[in-house]
């Protein structure tokens, strides 16, 4: 297990324990085993280190997480579910960024929703990935690295 993978696991557990009652368990393997709609949050990092952080979460679980976060009186609008994944990705990226060369900045989160799609950040490759199980669903956090400023 890479150092960065264990750091991502620790960060994710820390965020979960603060925000959610639903427990998060570290899982083996980075592949997504889910079928059905999948929500993906992506935050890019640029500066002394270039890359991105992605969070993949099945949509039903994203809805449950959003409900815990916002504690709505009525049904949650889909924007709130997307905001939840966006903010979780943002928190993950903000903490991961602190472990990377400085100064680096993080972008606003982008969120994609759909089934059977592949989201790629051009010019990057996976340097670490961590999988988690939460309420019977699989979450994956991926750290992608692009060209360093010297190479670019």
């Amino acid at each position, binding site marked *: 297990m890479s150092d960065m993978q264990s750091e991502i696991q620790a960060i994710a557990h820390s965020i979960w324990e*603060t925000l959610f009652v639903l427990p998060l368990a570290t899982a083996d393997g980075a592949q997504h085993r889910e079928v059905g709609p999948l929500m993906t949050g992506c935050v890019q990092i640029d500066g002394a280190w270039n890359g991105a952080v992605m969070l993949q979460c099945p949509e039903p679980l994203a809805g449950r997480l959003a409900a815990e*976060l916002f504690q709505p009186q009525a049904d949650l609008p889909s924007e709130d579910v997307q905001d939840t994944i966006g*903010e979780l990705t943002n*928190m993950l990226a*903000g*903490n991961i*960024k*602190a472990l990377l060369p*400085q100064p680096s900045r993080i972008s*606003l989160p982008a969120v994609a929703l759909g089934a059977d799609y592949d989201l790629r950040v051009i010019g990057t490759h996976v340097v670490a990935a961590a999988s988690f199980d939460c309420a019977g669903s699989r979450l994956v956090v991926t750290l992608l690295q692009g060209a360093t400023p010297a190479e670019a």
Partner: protein
Amino acid sequence: MPSNERRGPDRVRVATVLIVDDSSTIRRILRRDLEQAGYRVNEAADGEQGLTSCRTDRPDLVLLDVDMPVLDGLATMEQLQADPHLRWLPVLFLTARIAGDEVARGLELGAHDYLKKPCEPSELIARVSTALRLASRHDELQRRARELDALSNTDPLTGLGNRRHLEQVVEGIVARHGADSGLGLVLLDIDHFKKVNDSEGHLVGDVVLATVATRLRYAVRAHEHLVRWGGEEFVVLSPGIDIVDTAEVGERLRAAVAISPLAVGTGKDLSVTVSAGCAVGYAGQVRLVVEAADSALYRAKASGRNRVAVAADR
């Protein structure tokens, strides 16, 4: 519980917390937790909006995200510190849980504390409450310091400013208008005051001093500065006037004291008058102006008292 202790007369009002964070989700979560605890909440999406809100809405505390577009938290904090009206506003930084040097930098810039995102609602409320309580104590200390400063500049018998106060007035004129800005000065002395003390006692002497001070206070104009210079002497300073106008000030004050006998509480009234010496000069050389006024005052006394004498114009 929200702090209701801020800003003296506003003690009963609910504290307002400004959340500055580019994430609407974070703002929403923090707002919910703060409002549930009884706080009023304002929001801003970046540092510039946050500064505007600080200047217009005057929140009691700011929760400031570090990593924001437009103007980040550290740059926003620097601008808050540079604004004398906002310098003491308590700020809690919102940082990533692994914050690196951001926390140290934020605290160096003057932040009261920091919160790591995400944070437990109980921790949020505890830190906000503590920061508000500390800020309230700071405000109280500042208020007491201002009171002490005012006391050290005030003559306790007459309630007028003292010599130190006049020095500060002159320093202010020099700072605003330069050392070569002109001023007129009237030095007044109660005539035969020693006789009053000797014949009527020091308590009556104090009543005379306080009553003369009251008459002078009513006679001075808004732009004129009246102080008790020491003993039975008073000074009135007026910026930017010539010797003719200064002499008119002296005459106005002399007449205001002499207008009628003073009731001193012993069943009899005392006729009390003042003599006045007038001079003009530069704010940066006020000691010379006082000396010139003192010489003129000596001549006013020597020529019969209850009159005004002027020094030669510069």
